């Protein structure tokens, strides 16, 4: 269960975050929402694709971690196997909340990363923010700005018909077949047809680089299949 409350330097002064546990919160996520600003860091490991929110039907960018619900192929031997972990994992157990049109930092007080023993303090004994909290705030700020930026990016791509469904039919080493549905990617054919003005506008908006990063990241699907095959081998 989760219990989100606004972070407060008195109520939460004693709390510490066991940072060793943070990544374990994503152990059963097969995808995680990501923002444009982290694309270049993500592409070292993850396929970056679009999917639709099951709640609203609107598109979002995600890093693909596994092929079926509950499967995170980067979570192995109780560890996140990778040199970069997406912001939406690393910001935990903190969240951005909205109250009276103001954004504020919230914390999931039920999170198992919270302790009163070992861990990073959020506030010092005088109630002042620790360096750790400063770092968290920077991550949350990147996410907040990044989400708006990413939504604008998606809107632009949709208007140009640059997003298309992705057919992913995978055969794993043990001959197991899997069809992954509900993923979308850049329509390269359509991208190649854009005229000079449209390309220039995308360039000016700073969208050309993330577009090509997403295309390049699709190569990571093979790495992900490899991970799955290794897991099937060991099973």
């Amino acid at each position: 269960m989760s219990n989100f409350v606004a972070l407060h330097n008195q109520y939460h002064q004693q709390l510490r975050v066991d940072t060793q546990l943070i990544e374990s919160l994503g152990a059963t996520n097969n995808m995680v929402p990501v923002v444009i600003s982290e694309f270049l860091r993500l592409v070292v490991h993850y396929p970056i694709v679009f999917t639709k929110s099951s709640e609203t039907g609107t598109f979002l960018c995600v890093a693909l971690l596994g092929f079926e619900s509950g499967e995170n192929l980067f979570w192995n031997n109780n560890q996140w196997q990778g040199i970069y972990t997406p912001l939406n994992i690393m910001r935990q157990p903190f969240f951005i909340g909205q109250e009276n049109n103001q954004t504020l930092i919230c914390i999931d007080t039920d999170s198992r990363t919270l302790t009163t023993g070992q861990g990073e303090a959020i506030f010092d004994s005088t109630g002042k923010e620790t360096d750790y909290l400063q770092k968290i705030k920077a991550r949350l700020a990147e996410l907040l700005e990044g989400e708006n930026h990413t939504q604008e990016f998606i809107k632009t791509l949709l208007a140009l018909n640059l997003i298309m469904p992705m057919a992913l039919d995978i055969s794993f080493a043990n001959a197991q077949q899997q069809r992954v549905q509900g993923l979308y990617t850049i329509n390269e054919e359509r991208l190649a047809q854009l005229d000079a003005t449209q390309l220039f506008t995308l360039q000016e908006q700073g969208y050309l680089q993330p577009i090509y990063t997403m295309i390049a990241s699709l190569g990571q699907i093979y790495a992900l299949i490899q991970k799955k095959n290794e897991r099937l081998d060991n099973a």
Partner: protein
Amino acid sequence: MNKKITSIVIVGGGTAGWITAGRIAAHHRAQDGNINVTLIESPNIPIIGVGEGTWPTMRSTLMKLGISETDFIRECDASFKQGAKFARWVTGTSDDFYYHPLMLPQGFGKTNLAAHWQAARTKEQLQKSFSAATCFQEAVCEQGLAPKLITTPEFNSVANYAYHLNAGKFSTFLQKHCCAKLGVQHVLADVVSINSADNGDIASVNTAQAGTIEGDLFIDCSGFQSLLLGQHLQVPFIDCSDVLFIDTALAVQVPYESEDAPIASHTISTAQDAGWIWDIGLVHRRGVGHVYSSRHTSEEQATERLQNYVGAAFKNLTVRKIPIHCGHRQIFWKNNCVAVGLSAGFLEPLEASAIVLVELSASMIAEQLPACREVMDITAKRFNDTFRYRWERIIDFLKLHYILSKRTDNNFWSDNRDPATIPHSLQELMQLWRFHPPGDHDFTSNNEVFPAASYQYVLYGMGFETDYRYSQHLLQDIAVAQEQFAKNQKNIEQVVRSLPSNRELLTKIHLHGLQTI
């Protein structure tokens, strides 16, 4: 004489007028100046706004008009319709109902499902009605579920669907779209007289406010008055009241009890002693009405039936009385004038045939628009043959709903069963179906309106039994049928788990919209 048809003039601006204008303008790209499409609408005559129910064809019509489904749903109070539930049509008891869903029976065509279903029912191996046993859509409707998910793209579906819509808002919506996007010229004026050419064609119409308007082809969408085809060209009206007795409608708009009240995702048609009551769920209200035969009941009696159906809310509602003349023009296209919509005819709304006939007419006119006057008479003849056939098949299909009823509470039902009131074409089909179920071979025209499956749903929904004693040798594939029944059951479990309620999905579409991919 041999001049390209370039100027299309549509008289009348209801659903019929705007759909026809839009289809022609979109198909011939009027905005590029290929042809002129002018719609003359009276600023003084209100829209009748018949039929709030459509067929799944509306999805392709909207797509061809280049309309966003999200905009359409938001601006026309539209909701999803997955067929019709016919309650109390057979015996009149409260547990008497069947469905005419919008999807084919599971595995239709693979085996004689109707025969196997009937055999299993007779041996009491299967309790389910024909529609429940063969089509998962009935369960979707019974549970008030939507035909798709918020992640399903515009116009795509999990279960086939049509719409319920607010006809008044739909006309306004189409008007805006046709004028802004498709290059239709909108003239607000009253047509006061018509000028003929030597060959009897309509040369032009005189209007009170906008002078004389000439055209190569005139489309009569003037409603019941049938200004051009009926009044001016004197094409006779063929009355069908000897077959279909419904002649009056009493309509009310019923508010929901709460903002989050469920919205039925099908039309509910509940039989009464001398007619039936429609119940259509839109987003903000229900449209409810009693259509009846005034030869079999009084207005007071009918009002009471409607009141009983609606309940306590009825006393605050305004009842609108609408006369219905079931019938159609003898021909629909004469000289250079073709009628679409009520000016062509009207049948009782039991199977929501009004708007679909408009779509079919608009589609044929748009796609087969005569190149020049010289060939127009050939197109006109084809159009007349096609639509005469369609009107007759619809009349047959509507009548089918009445002749199998076992109700005896009013002569309305026994008169309906009187063979003298049943068209010969339907009687022949009924004879054939004594020994085999309706199949595609019974409907071989390119212009069929209802598929064989629709006849099966109604026939077996109403308890008709086909006699298979001479065809036992064709019914050995029981395993195939069992497989289809099992598949249907599996489908039911799957969709019931995943689909949101109709209200929930519509609320989300208003909030977030549907994606185009």
